[in-house]
């Protein structure tokens, strides 16, 4: 069992680093994003004439 422990510890360290918010923060500096939003579109889908 002993040899596995360092491996697990390494994996845990890797995972904790990988998922840490700080690490995640460091991975991006700027993210472009476009959000489209509508309101009451059924007015447009149901024109009568």
């Amino acid at each position: 069992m002993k040899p596995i422990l360092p491996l697990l510890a390494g994996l845990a360290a890797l995972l904790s680093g990988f998922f840490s918010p700080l690490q995640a923060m460091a991975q991006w500096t700027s993210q472009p994003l476009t959000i489209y939003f509508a309101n009451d579109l059924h007015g447009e889908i149901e024109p009568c004439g």
Partner: protein
Amino acid sequence: MTVDSGGLLFDQPTLLAGREGQAKASAAAIVKAYGLMGYDAVGISANDLAAGLAYLKKVSQQSRFPWLSANLVNTTDRKPLFTPFIIRKIGQIRIGIIGITGSAALAADTTGEATILPWQQVLPDLAESLTSRCDLLLLLSSLPDEANRRIAESLSGIHIILQAGSGSANMMPEQVGNTLLTHTGRQGKYIGRLQLDWKPSKRWGKDQARLLLDAQRKLDQVNWQLKRLQRKGLPAADSQDNPKLLTYYHQLSDTRDLLLAQISALQQGHEAPRSTYQVEFPAIEASIPNLEAVEAMVREAKAEINRLGKEARLRMQTTARATPQPADATAASPYLGWRKCGGCHPSQAAGWRKSRHAGSYQTLVKKEQQFNLNCLPCHVTGIDAANAPEALTLPDDRRQVGCESCHGPGRLHGAAPTASRPTVSLPPATTCLGCHTPEHDDDFDFARDQLLVH
């Protein structure tokens, strides 16, 4: 990413009598269209429950996108009846999208199973738990504007609130705390396009260069003021004679020190970059090409809506034939029809027959929507939304926007022309605005257009 804050299925919290079939056919088409357009999520508003909880559950199961509400819960166990939130990863960031349902009355056939909790009972904990899991938090809210402002003031972790049904005009984003509030105008005339440059600081603000310029401009102004006061001898001892001026001088000095520190931090890059945005509200104009699949689906839905109305008319006619009618069945109605009016007012009737009002029903016939109860009230005489099904069996001389649409029912006047005057001699603008809404006629001008009537 494409989202909607709710109220897309129905425009009222309860369905009007006789209109359930057509309203549901229309709602089903909207859901399919949203699926085809690739919506990422929609919020649930109380109007979406107009056909009942079971109906919305069925719709949500058939939708290609999630329906979100964190506060629409089971009355007994207080657990959410729909997905409270989702997390989408776009590019490098994780976006949390929460739905919150406005507290309008629920439809009668939710049978007490559903309860809308106040946002205060669910949002603070949910927003806090999502803050560590998401880079950007978006709220789809059908709460009123004032409630959304309170959310923005108290929950700094929510970065954007998209409102539903909050006003007829587009709302330029307004920053409250660290939250942007915005919505598009009602009635589907515009789409909102919010382009973000989202930074890890998760704070809204101007970009670095702009902040630096602003700070330097303020510093110039403060320095100029300070020099002016120094020329007057401040802060020398003899200026103690004017304590107010001395206080002002010290305030200016403090401001200068703060600005110098801010400029230094900005120049050295110590200030975390702020997130910025641009917004546009492109009008959904006829010139924009339709997505072919959506267009075909809308065409099918409208044909189905008309077919349902035609079936309803057949049922009504069958029932009427089976029911003994009074000798003069039309006398039961307070409306006479335009031909009777024209008998005594021939010149007005002749003028009116050349107007578009006289052909209003034919407009629907040409579009094969003459049995659509959503359309009919504005294309015939003496019908409103509440009694729309009656429009299906109107006599021929009320299948126009006739004299009595503007002047009121004329039966009493017809029976005793001098003793009983028409209900309305000169109709006010409000009579017209009931149908000439911005949704249907955004170019309506009462002063100009009243001259076209006859």
